[in-house]
């Protein structure tokens, strides 16, 4: 059916999107790579010079770098654990016959649509504030001392906020997978007297395996870039206690005006993200045909 004419038309239709994305991908990345080899600070213009691998070396030997990598990993793993385990549990609960299922779904999915700065501000002021937050009110009610969450457990507090934002996503994806589970098989297992936990382990979990993988991989991509939640709540502190790699690079570029250093950090972030992306692409690619 495809004549030569329709083929060249198709090529013409594809071209703008491909060219735009190609430029968008290559030009800034090439610039980042170039800057990462320069001594370049916006505060001292005219003193730009070739730095070789100094920026990488500098970034690599900075104790803040290791702390930020550690924080990035804790943040990603912490949020993933909460959202995947919580997501499975909530999805299974919502999938049960309940009254008002539609409304329950809407309530559960809602946090996903709250923009990160708003989510962070709500939690910081309304929920976790040491004197006026709901948690403090609860502590006072039981006669306990309120906790100053962002000062004492900064990274944990950010994990809670980000997990709240992503729990709906995990729940929704897992619920979608759960709803395609073969009911008859489950019934047969039930009639044969298979207890609930083994039905879960041998039927439900394997069926959801693919969805769980997708949730983990997609969330990881987004979680590596957590930024606004940190900016609004702890600003990376105290010290570097809640600084992740994204925030460290932002600090270098925007607060220290260290273009070379920030670019080197950016390249490190690309390497890290590519590592994750490799697995995601394989999982998605399998489903293309």
């Amino acid at each position, binding site marked *: 059916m495809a004549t030569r004419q329709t083929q060249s038309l198709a090529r013409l239709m594809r071209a703008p999107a491909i060219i735009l994305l190609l430029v968008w991908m290559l030009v800034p990345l090439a610039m980042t790579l170039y800057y990462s080899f320069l001594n370049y600070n916006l505060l001292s213009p005219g003193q730009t010079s070739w730095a070789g691998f100094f920026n990488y070396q500098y970034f690599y030997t900075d104790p803040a770098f290791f702390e930020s990598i550690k924080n990035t990993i804790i943040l990603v793993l912490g949020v993933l654990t909460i959202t995947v385990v919580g997501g499975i549990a909530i999805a299974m609960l919502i999938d049960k016959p309940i009254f*008002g299922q539609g409304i329950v779904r809407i309530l559960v999915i*809602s946090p996903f649509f709250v923009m990160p700065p708003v989510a962070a501000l709500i939690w910081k002021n309304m929920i976790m504030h040491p004197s006026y937050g709901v948690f403090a009110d609860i502590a006072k009610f039981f006669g306990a001392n309120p906790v100053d969450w962002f000062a004492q457990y900064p990274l944990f507090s950010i994990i809670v906020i980000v997990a709240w934002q992503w729990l709906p996503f995990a729940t929704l994806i897992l619920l979608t997978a759960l709803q395609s589970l073969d009911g008859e098989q489950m019934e047969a297992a039930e009639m044969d007297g298979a207890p609930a936990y083994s039905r879960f382990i041998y039927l439900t979990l394997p069926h959801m395996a693919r969805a769980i993988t997708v949730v983990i991989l997609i969330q990881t991509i987004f979680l590596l870039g957590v930024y606004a939640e940190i900016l*609004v709540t702890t600003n990376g502190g105290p010290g570097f206690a809640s600084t992740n790699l994204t925030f460290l690079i932002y600090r270098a570029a925007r607060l220290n005006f260290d273009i070379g250093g920030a670019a080197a950090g950016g390249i490190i972030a690309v390497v890290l993200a590519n590592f994750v992306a490799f697995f995601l692409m394989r999982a998605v690619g399998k489903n293309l045909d």
Partner: protein
Amino acid sequence: MARAVSKNAKIGYTIAAWTVALVIFFPILYTIITSLKTEQEAIEGFNLIPSFTFESYQTVQSQNDYFKPFMNSVILSVGSTILALIVAIPAAWAMAFSPTKRTKDILMWMLSTKMMPAVAVLVPIYLIFLRTGLMDTRIGLTVLLMLINLPIVVWMLYTYFREIPGEILEAARMDGAGLREEIVHILAPMAVPGIASTLLLNVILAWNESFWTIQLTTTNAAPLSAFIASFSSPQGLFWAKLSAASTLAIGPILILGWFSQKQLVRGLTFGAVK
């Protein structure tokens, strides 16, 4: 599938599910409630019944010119999505209806551009915006947001277009339909739902984008995400006001979001979970 469930079990599940749902929704609910309180009430301790005053909403508008960032959010999210659609519809169309051997590779490559961490290109984008005068302009940010969402737009459209049966076209051609009729009477009506879904999800994503909007705007082009982030320090303790601004910022998108649950699964998993 009607599995027999005793009434008691159903009531038990219902109570459990509603409890979980209300706990998850509570921060949003409490923000809405607080926005209807006076500043004094807002810090007086836990209280679910506000005095239903709209004072804070008026304050937000009169003190901060709330309308401006709100309009910026609308312009940026809708503008960038429409731009993306203009580029993506022909591309997705061509890939769905005249696929070549490389179509799959191209799609995978497009998806891979989405994996690039934003912070990795912060330095060049920031410098480009600074030097070309695009800093704090709506046009610069619109184009940037368009590029960020373009891969998802192409992908979503592609998965929708692929569901349009190609045979229907052939049948129309046999009946002597020209290209114009083909597009107007057959393809457009079948493609519209997919395009609408894509539009909806991408407006939501662009509305909530917070990294670039904070980096590249100050006052003129700042959408709600950047505007609210700047609330964090000075207005920290004016909670009724903060809640009012937050409620207005998330309200429209929350309602849009409720209608887009299905598209969300499809759009964000690139068709990997159905």
